[in-house]
């Protein structure tokens, strides 16, 4: 996985976890954590 990929991952919502698509923004150094942005069809 690399920055720019869209992947499915579990996101906490209402005290449970649901699978949602997220956009990988950056792989953070040291622990290789991923900075992501959740993708939603809901418009605000």
């Amino acid at each position, binding site marked *: 996985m690399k920055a720019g*990929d869209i992947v*499915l991952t579990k*996101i*906490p*919502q*209402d005290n449970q976890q*649901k*699978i*949602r*698509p997220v956009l990988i923004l950056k792989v953070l150094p040291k622990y290789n954590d991923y900075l992501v942005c*959740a993708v*939603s069809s*809901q418009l*605000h």
Partner: protein
Amino acid sequence: MRSFCFLFLSGQASQPKPLCGVNPPNFHDNLFNSYMPGQTNKYFGQRPDYKKMRLPDTGISGKVLVILENSLMKNITLHIDYETKPEKLAGSLKSQKPDRGDKLIVNSVLNEELTLIILLSILYFWNEGKMQYANEVLKDIFSTKGNKEIQDEIAKEYGIEIEIKSSAEKNEWLRFSREKLAGAYGDREPDYDMNMVKEPNPDYKQK
């Protein structure tokens, strides 16, 4: 255990003899002025219950190192959350036997003002003789005095250092974050299934 206290005493090689007790004024001077520079508690007056010691017979010349376990200043930690009962915390405080020079660390999910009020209740239960003082501080909390100033005054009155670690702001950000994240999806929006992916990544190898 916050720090070690070292007391250096001289012995004589030719005439070994036991040393019984320690002179209180020298004890305090040596312990907190000479051998702990920068580590003394700024609210510390004089610990009244100095520990009498008896050193074993020794022929060692020079310096004898003594660690005064019962006289070490200690850290006492209290946790305050939304279901905290002051009398229970006061019991916890009493059981840890706070003494002058100790440090009281208060971890709280509440903001500093509310934490100070609860802390005051705790200290009141701990030492009911200071009821009048507690009333005065309560007035200060509702006046223009700053939290830090009130905190310092309480610390001086009780002879203990106080550190409040409030996580109220962090919790508020987490709550805000959860709320916005929940709002990003519909209430009954199901999990995003693999079958809903319109353009699968050809490089992705499904396990």
